């Protein structure tokens, strides 16, 4: 989409279908699209989801609510540990966990949005996180082949958007949001504030509107 459609959280979240892969921005709950997540929890029955997010929320908060509903089949994350209920669900075999070093996780999403299918990184070489992955020595240093990551739907949070869908993030709430906005078939942005076109300085736009399909105001 070239121009975002301003809509409700309930309508936007209808893009998420059972079996989908869904990216969710935020470092813990900071920068997480909590209005969209509440809509996913309360107004969608999509299940069997693969969630790509740095953490699986916190107990009963953010993605932690979706986890309690048993609707997550698999998680791709760098730090499940921040939600002990996610760890327990993995240990009970209820969800499948794919753990990635945080920089590899970020770069795989960036690459996914940039048309790069994979990359060699020295991070993780020789560790259990490299098991099953192709290793190659480059300039004398062992590297691991990491494949890029894309999703069916990305849910991101920005402090401010214009009605075209240009986004501006605030402070450390930026984190994974700009990357995830680029790496999904459908990107839904939640913004604290939505301003008219021209209300954002072009120099301050961090995500240009061509990445954004649906725009929802924070509840």
């Amino acid at each position: 989409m070239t121009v975002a459609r301003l809509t409700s959280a309930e309508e936007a979240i209808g893009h998420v279908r059972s079996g989908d892969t869904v990216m969710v921005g935020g470092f813990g709950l900071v920068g997480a699209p909590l209005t969209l997540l509440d809509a996913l929890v309360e107004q969608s029955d999509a299940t069997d989801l693969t969630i790509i997010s740095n953490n699986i929320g916190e107990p009963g908060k953010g993605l932690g609510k979706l986890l309690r509903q048993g609707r997550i089949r698999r998680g791709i994350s760098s730090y499940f540990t921040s939600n002990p209920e996610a760890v327990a669900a993995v240990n009970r075999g209820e969800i499948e966990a794919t753990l990635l070093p945080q920089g590899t996780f970020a770069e795989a999403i960036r690459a996914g949005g940039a048309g790069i299918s994979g990359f060699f990184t020295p991070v993780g070489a020789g560790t259990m996180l490299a098991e099953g992955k192709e290793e190659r020595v480059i300039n004398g240093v062992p590297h691991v082949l990491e494949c890029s990551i894309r999703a069916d739907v990305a849910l991101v949070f920005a402090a401010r958007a214009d009605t075209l869908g240009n986004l501006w993030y605030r402070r450390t709430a930026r984190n994974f949001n700009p990357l995830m906005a680029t790496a999904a078939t459908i990107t839904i942005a939640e913004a604290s504030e939505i301003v008219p076109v021209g209300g954002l300085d072009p120099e301050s736009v961090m995500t240009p509107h061509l990445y954004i399909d649906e725009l929802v105001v924070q509840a």
Partner: protein
Amino acid sequence: MSDDHKRTIAARAALELRAGEVVNLGIGIPNLIPGFLDDDAGVFLHTENGLLGVGPRPDENELDNDMIDAAKRPVTALPGASYFDSASSFAMIRGGHIDVAVLGALQVSAGGDIANWAVPGKDVLGVGGAMDLVVGARRVIVTMTATSSAGDPKVVPVCTYPLTAKGAVDVVITELSVFRVRHGGLVLVELLDGATVEDVKAVTSANFAVDLELRHAS
């Protein structure tokens, strides 16, 4: 571990940092280091969730929900600070633009291998930025007690815990001593708080050379 030990380790680690360096501090003992840095130390603190120029903890009326460090605790930003996304932050780390990473460890081997993210038999579901930092930072300083809470040595011949990275560690600071990894082997370079070489040997299962250096007055 006693708070005295933590303070001894953090105070000594602070002496490793030089003006102008960009430093990433892990959770635990490394987070005590700012308390031992002079206001004019000239060190720039990086936190991997997207901030260079980390300032002190905020007081109550400075609290901002959008301002946390990688340990998810509230922080402030100093004049000259910058924010960036996670891919940029880890590009800084892997690209060799972070001068120093200071972090804790469960085990460090004689060859500088480090294990600091997982304990065998427990959940291995949280790695965060640990692997990226120890591979990418130009100098890696480990701050940890000499022994585990069970009394086992943490400076070992070979790590038995899951590795974070091989050959990544440059300096190990415990409550008793400072080791440097040189040419793939450990060298004891400094004794802390009146410890003796025998004291260090008693809690270190790895072999090490001894080459005590005078600390330059700071």
